[in-house]
């Protein structure tokens, strides 16, 4: 039986142990690559090159990371309140409807008005989609994990219906809305070309990346510098102490879920307003679920989430380069590698901790 012994220094907890986990994940991934007959070192080099070896790679990496920051923050806020919001996927998907509705419906207005409105609409619809499970949890005790999963499916069907019957222009074959021509968020490439006359490599990176940084700061401020954040964390850390302190759990659950949903909704801003410029089927593409891994890995702290989102951005971008370069390693293999990273960094977060602790204290005694 392993006993908890003393405290590990902070740097071991947040630095060394995640690095060990990452290393183990990469070693196991390497073994998988070896089994299918490829050179793991070469594969890793291709991944790294593909992600950070060029401006284009960086663009994609940051674009993916933007999505993951939003969904990761969404999971983290709910997690601080003791809630496991698995519904980021559905909340982001629904939020896309809000973004597209405002972006298309109000395009007669100038873009400096429409874009903020479209961002607010994304947040509002995402918040609404998380608010319902929040109310069900607070008032009826329906478990948030079950309801948010269910709401992912409802969102998937509902948005599909809306695109098909409401947003799709008559005669268009593809299941998507008409293009947002006025109020979209410009990509870095477009800004460089239009305003500076410079050609840079094509990538979907757009100005939403600054929104992600702002959101990370806002979440930190909310949780650690406001009374509401204090109440959210108190409820998550010790519900009976929170009740003793006069914090109403039902109220906090609903508020935390709404904030969580709004953050997930921002993912639609990056994707719909920043990249696709139209509402397309299945645009979330699993980013909501990656957010769970990102939040776990980032220890639900905004700084950790930004770092974890960058790592996953690297895996996504490097992974797709790898599947281009090596036909043997197809898209599914890349998903396997990502899954292994999630497994070791998230689910097996504490697997190596006892050994590290034992080594550490042995060294200390000498």
């Amino acid at each position, binding site marked *: 039986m392993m006993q908890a*012994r003393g405290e590990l220094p902070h740097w071991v907890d947040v630095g060394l142990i995640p690095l060990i986990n990452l290393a183990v994940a990469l070693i196991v991934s390497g073994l998988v690559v070896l089994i299918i007959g490829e050179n793991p070192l070469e594969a890793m080099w291709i991944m790294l090159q593909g992600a950070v070896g060029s401006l284009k790679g960086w663009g994609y990496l940051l674009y993916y990371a933007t999505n993951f920051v939003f969904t990761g923050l969404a999971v983290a806020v709910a997690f601080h309140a003791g809630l496991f919001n698995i519904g980021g996927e559905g909340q982001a998907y629904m939020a896309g409807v809000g973004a597209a509705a405002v972006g298309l419906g109000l395009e007669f207005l100038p873009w400096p008005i429409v874009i903020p409105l479209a961002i607010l609409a994304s947040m509002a619809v995402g918040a609404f989609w998380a608010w319902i499970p929040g109310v069900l949890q607070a008032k009826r005790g329906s478990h948030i994990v079950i309801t948010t999963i269910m709401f992912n499916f409802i969102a998937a069907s509902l948005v599909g219906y809306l695109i098909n019957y409401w947003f799709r222009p008559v005669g268009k074959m593809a299941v998507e809305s008409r293009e947002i021509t006025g109020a979209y968020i410009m990509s870095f490439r477009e800004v460089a070309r239009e305003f500076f006359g410079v050609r840079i490599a094509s990538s979907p990176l757009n100005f939403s990346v600054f929104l992600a940084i702002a959101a990370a700061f806002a979440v930190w401020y909310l949780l650690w510098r*406001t009374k509401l954040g204090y109440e959210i964390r*108190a409820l998550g850390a010790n519900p009976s*102490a929170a009740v*003793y302190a*006069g914090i109403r759990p039902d109220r906090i659950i609903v508020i935390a879920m709404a904030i969580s949903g709004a953050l997930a909704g921002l993912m639609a801003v990056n994707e719909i307003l920043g990249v696709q410029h139209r509402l397309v089927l299945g645009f979330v593409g699993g980013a909501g679920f990656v957010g769970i891994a990102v939040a776990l890995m980032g220890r639900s702290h905004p700084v950790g989430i930004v770092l974890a989102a960058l790592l996953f951005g690297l895996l996504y971008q490097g992974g797709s380069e790898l599947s281009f370069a090596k036909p043997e390693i197809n898209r599914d293999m890349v998903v396997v590698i990502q899954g292994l990273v999630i497994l070791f960094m998230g689910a097996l977060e504490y697997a190596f901790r006892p050994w590290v602790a034992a080594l550490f204290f042995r060294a200390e*005694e000498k």
Partner: protein
Amino acid sequence: MHGDGDGMTPAIELIGIDKRFGSVHANKDVTLEIAQGSIHGIIGENGAGKSTLMSILFGFYHADKGEIRVKGQPVRIKSSSDAIALGIGMVHQHFMLVEPFTVLENVVLGAEGGALIGPALDKARAELTRLAADYELDVDPDAIVGELPVGLQQRVEILKALFKGAETLILDEPTGVLTPDEADHLFRILGTLREQGKTVILITHKLREIMAITDRVSVMRRGEVVATRETKQTNVEELAELMVGRHVLLRVEKGPSQPGETVLDVRNLTWKDRKGVARVDNVSFSVRKGEIVGIAGVSGNGQSELLDVISGITRPTSGQVIFEGKDIGILGDPRHVRAEGLAHVPEDRQHRGLIGSFDASENVILGWHHEEALGKGFRLDRDKVVARARAEMEEFDVRPPDPFLKSSKFSGGNQQKLIIAREIKSNPDLLIVGQPTRGVDIGAIEYIHKRIIQLRDEGKAVLLVSVELDEIRSMSDRILVMFAGRIMGERGPGADERELGLLMAGVAKDAA
């Protein structure tokens, strides 16, 4: 194995036991000898290492150094099943029972002896009858354990250990949950066990129990055994001094109370749980300025529920809680109750009073975090929070005085001081206190008692709930006794312990 009952070879020998948890040196070179057929007491403050030592003996922890001998033979105890096989049984402070199971099913747990449960149950039934006759350990074998009173649940724990062949029985703080009467019965059982040649190790922090029942006593302080005495040749004062390492006052020093006007008036208060059982049953009493009203009773007789209703955590089913002329029962919200001038030190500091993962400064504002003084509007000003924590920690001598240390890292006494500081510094008209010194070392107890009395002398009202009869008797200006949700009677501070014990057991009841 040799000489089971020769009385010469000690039942248990611990030689040079050493155990560290990280930087904490929990047991320092502990050597202890437990004589066969004796009752050996181990006393010490919280964190003195008693529980660690017994956990090593019972196989929960492994000693870093040292040797254990059972009946003279060196042994290695790697798990609790090794300990049981060597004839060591343990009755934990928190019972390890499966509540929906019957007594019989609990007794055979871990000793089923095959794929079918039938034969083991038959054997256990016969064995239980024998044990009941030998040791005054009567329990209905077919009763559901969860429905038994705590005293009987404890008996089931003892039966479990004896059924598995325990020759040496370790009891960890066994009387915390018992009435004085039940405790006496337990001591009779322990006496019979000793007569039958069994060995008993009694861990406690209650000096009175040590004096009443043990043959020898070992005192632990800071991980070391500082003394072992024949019980007959020592006294309470000496033991207390050995435990703390300095001279301590066992009596609380306080002057007579000067009660003023009524602050809290509880009228016909009833609170029913979900099953409709009245846990607080038509309770009426009042608390005046400048007095401490103590509520005595065995834990689980409605005191916790009463505190919850008064502090606004739950709403009364019927009746009123009049605080300074206003019915606060209908508020049903601790935040508003606090705003009226009521402070609450909860019974369970780890689950209620503190948030273990928060640092001390964040715990110093728990419940009071809405105050504008801590930040305007929605903001929470970290500097102001830390400044308040520093001031309170210094005034109440919380050690270490570090506002950034997680509250779970403080010792029990310092955690309690943190809560007492928070609630007293809110300058309440009424302080309600539940179990203020449970699991707190003697030094901190002295201090906490002093601060509560100081609050009384400032003309504030105090309502004190405690299961420690000594604490109630030494602190209170008036004593109420609760049993099964009702107030059984009121007594003055000089009340006879025997008489209070009868009220606590629900035997006698005042006409009132």
